[in-house]
C-alpha cells in the first residue's frame, strides 16, 4: 500500500523538510501560531484528550490524561522529550529527529504552552550523534526565527529548549532513570509513585513524552481532534509509526492508521518476505514483548487487539523472524541485550539475565542438559514481577513465549546436542 501522503513522516514526501525554510514552506510553525492565538492552555490539553493520542514510547498511556496530572501549585514545570530510543527493533524516533526535527520542536513548543512549562529538554540518545547535531541546529534556527525564546510570536509565553546528550544506557529510556541522568547522575530508576508529573526533574512537576508522541501535536492542532480520532479505533486512535526489520523486502518505518492488520504491515507496506523466506514468528512491538505466530497475522495493530492476541504494541518495533532463524540463538541474543543493559540494582534482573544467557549459550552449543528448559522457566519466574523497574519483566517476554511456541526446538537442542537449524556459534570475546 503506497501512501500518497504522510502526516508524521512527511520527510518521505518532501525533500529537505529538516530545513527551517522548507518546513515553513509546507505549513511548518502554522500550528504553533494557531495554538498561541486560538487556544488557552487548558483547551489544548482538552484537544489532546479528545484526539485520543496515547504515549508512543511503549506504555500507551493517554497523553492528555497524563498532562492533566500536573498539580496546579505554581511550581516550575518541565517538559522532557524522551529521544533515548534503544528498544531493539525500534528506529522511528531516529528518523523523526534526523529527518523532521522541526516537527518535534514545534510539537514541544505547543506542548510546553499547553502544560505551562517554560523550560523543555530533549534527552537524545548518545549514539545518535547526527540526530543530536540536527536537533541542535534546528533548535538554533527556531530561536533565530522567534519560535523559541522570550514572548514567542508576541505572546506572553516564553520557552527555553535544551538538547541534552545521553551517553549509552538503554535504561535511560525509562522515564525516571532518564530524569536521574538529566540531573547528572547514574541512570538508576526511581521509586514510583510519586510519578514525574508530581515530582520529576529537580523534584518539580514534569511531563516526559516520547518523540513520536510530541511529533503528533502539529498535525493534531492543524487538523483537529476529530480528524485524529477518526483513524484507528475508539480506544486506539490515530497514527502509529511501525519500524519493520527482518527478512522483508523493504525494511523501514511506516506510518499506519492504528488497527491496520499485521499482515498488511508486512505484505503491503514492507512488501512481503524476501524470496525463499517464510515467517517463523513476529515480535510486534520491540524486543520486550511476547512473539506472535504466523496464524495471528490478521491481528489488528492496535493496543487492545494485540494484548488480546497475547502480546503488546509497545514501541512499534516489528521484527520478523524467518524460518531459517534458530529460536534458541534469537532468545540468547535478546537475553544478552538485557544482561548488558540491566543497571544492576535488582538481584533478579542482574543475576537472572546472566544465568539465562549462560543456559541458552550452552544449549545453542549442544552442551545443554535435560533440566535446562525448566531451569530457564524457573529463573524467568523468579524475575517476573520482582524487579523495581520494567526491564526485568521485559527481559523474559520473548523467551517465555518462545518456549511456549517452540518447545520442541528448545528440547531438540538438548536431545540432539546441537542446533537442529545448524546456526553458527561464534567464539567472540564477549560471548
Amino acid at each position, binding site marked *: 500500500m503506497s501512501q500518497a501522503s504522510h502526516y508524521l513522516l512527511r520527510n518521505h514526501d518532501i525533500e529537505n523538510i529538516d530545513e527551517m525554510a522548507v518546513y515553513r514552506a509546507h505549513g511548518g510553525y502554522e500550528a504553533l501560531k494557531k495554538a498561541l492565538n486560538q487556544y488557552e492552555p487548558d483547551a489544548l490539553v482538552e484537544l489532546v484528550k479528545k484526539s485520543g493520542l496515547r504515549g508512543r514510547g511503549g506504555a500507551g498511556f493517554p497523553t492528555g490524561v497524563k498532562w492533566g496530572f500536573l498539580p496546579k501549585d505554581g511550581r*516550575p514545570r518541565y517538559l522532557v522529550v524522551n529521544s533515548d*530510543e*534503544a*528498544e*531493539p*527493533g*525500534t*528506529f522511528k*524516533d*531516529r528518523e523523526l529527529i534526523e529527518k523532521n526535527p522541526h516537527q518535534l520542536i514545534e510539537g514541544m513548543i505547543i506542548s510546553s504552552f499547553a502544560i505551562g512549562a517554560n*523550560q523543555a529538554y530533549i534527552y537524545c*540518545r*548518545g*549514539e*545518535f*550523534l*547526527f540526530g543530536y547535531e540536527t536537533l541542535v541546529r534546528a533548535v538554533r534556527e527556531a530561536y533565530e526565527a522567534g519560535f523559541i525564546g522570550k514572548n514567542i510570536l508576541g505572546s506572553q509565553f516564553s520557552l527555553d529548549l*535544551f538538547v*541534552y*546528550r*545521553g*551517553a*549509552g*544506557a*538503554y535504561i535511560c529510556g525509562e522515564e525516571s532513570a532518564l530524569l536521574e*541522568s*538529566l*540531573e*547528572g*547522575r*547514574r*541512570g538508576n530508576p526511581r521509586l514510583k509513585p510519586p510519578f514525574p508529573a508530581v515530582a520529576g526533574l*529537580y523534584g518539580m512537576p514534569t511531563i516526559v513524552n516520547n518523540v513520536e508522541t510530541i511529533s503528533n501535536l502539529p498535525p493534531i492542532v492543524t487538523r483537529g481532534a476529530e480528524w485524529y480520532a477518526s483513524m484507528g479505533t475508539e480506544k486506539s486512535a490515530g497514527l502509529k509509526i511501525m*519500524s519493520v*526489520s*527482518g*527478512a522483508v523486502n523493504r*525494511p*523501514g*518505518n511506516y506510518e499506519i492508521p492504528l488497527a491496520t492488520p499485521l499482515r498488511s504491515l508486512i505484505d503491503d507496506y514492507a512488501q512481503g518476505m524476501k524470496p525463499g523466506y517464510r515467517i517463523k514468528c513476529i*515480535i510486534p512491538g520491540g*524486543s520486550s514483548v511476547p512473539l506472535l505466530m504466523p496464524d495471528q497475522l490478521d491481528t489488528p495493530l492496535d493496543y487492545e487487539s494485540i494484548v488480546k492476541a497475547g502480546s503488546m504494541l509497545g514501541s512499534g*518495533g516489528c*521484527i520478523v*523472524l*524467518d524460518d531459517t*532463524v534458530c529460536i534458541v*540463538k*534469537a532468545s540468547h*541474543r*535478546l537475553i544478552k*541485550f538485557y544482561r*548488558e*543493559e540491566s*543497571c544492576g540494582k535488582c538481584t533478579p534482573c542482574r543475576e537472572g539475565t546472566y544465568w539465562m544467557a549462560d543456559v541458552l549459550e550452552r544449549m545453542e552449543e549442544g552442551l545443554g542438559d535435560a533440566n535446562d528448559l525448566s531451569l530457564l522457566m524457573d529463573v524467568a519466574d523468579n524475575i517476573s514481577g520482582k524487579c523495581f523497574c520494567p526491564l526485568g519483566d521485559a527481559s523474559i517476554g520473548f523467551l517465555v513465549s518462545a518456549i511456549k511456541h517452540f518447545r520442541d526446538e528448545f528440547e531438540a537442542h538438548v536431545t540432539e546436542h546441537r542446533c537442529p537449524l545448524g546456526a*553458527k556459534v*561464534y567464539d*567472540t*570475546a*564477549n560471548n
Partner: protein
Amino acid sequence: MKPEYQVWAEELKKEFPNANSALMPLLHRIQTEEGWLSSEVLDEVAHLMGLSTQYVESVASFYSLFYQRPVGKKVVHVCVGLSCMLAGSDEVMHRLEQKLGISEGETTPDGAFTLLEAECLAACDLAPVAQVNLRFQGPIHPDEAEALLSEEVSKQ
C-alpha cells in the same frame, strides 16, 4: 588540563536550573577533545563541578560511551542487536576481528582502531549496521566489512 575547560564548565552550568546537570555535557565535550577520560581528567572535572572525584567516576562508569581507557583513532561499533544478528552482524564482527587481529573490546597496538559491540543502534532498516566514531554505516555486507576501516569520518 586546558584553561578552556573551566570556561566550558561555567557556560554549561548556566544552561540548567541545577548546575549538576552540566556534568554529562562537560564530560562529552572534554572527551571529544581528549579522546578518553583519564582519572586525571575526572579529577579535574570534579574540581570544576564542585563534586567529589568518586561521584564523577560513578557517573562516568555508568555510561558505555564515556571511555575510561584510551581508545583508537577510529572507534568501530558493530551493532549486535537482534535485527542486525538476523542480517549477519556475527559475521561482520568476525571478519573485523580477523582483519584487525584483535577481539571485540580491544584496541589495535598501533592505536588506530577500537572494536566494540553495540547493542541495538536503532537503525535496523540499515542492518547489519555499524558506527565509525558514531557515524552510521550500513547495510554492511560481511564481504565488504573491511571497507568500514578505511572510511573517512569526521571527528566526534
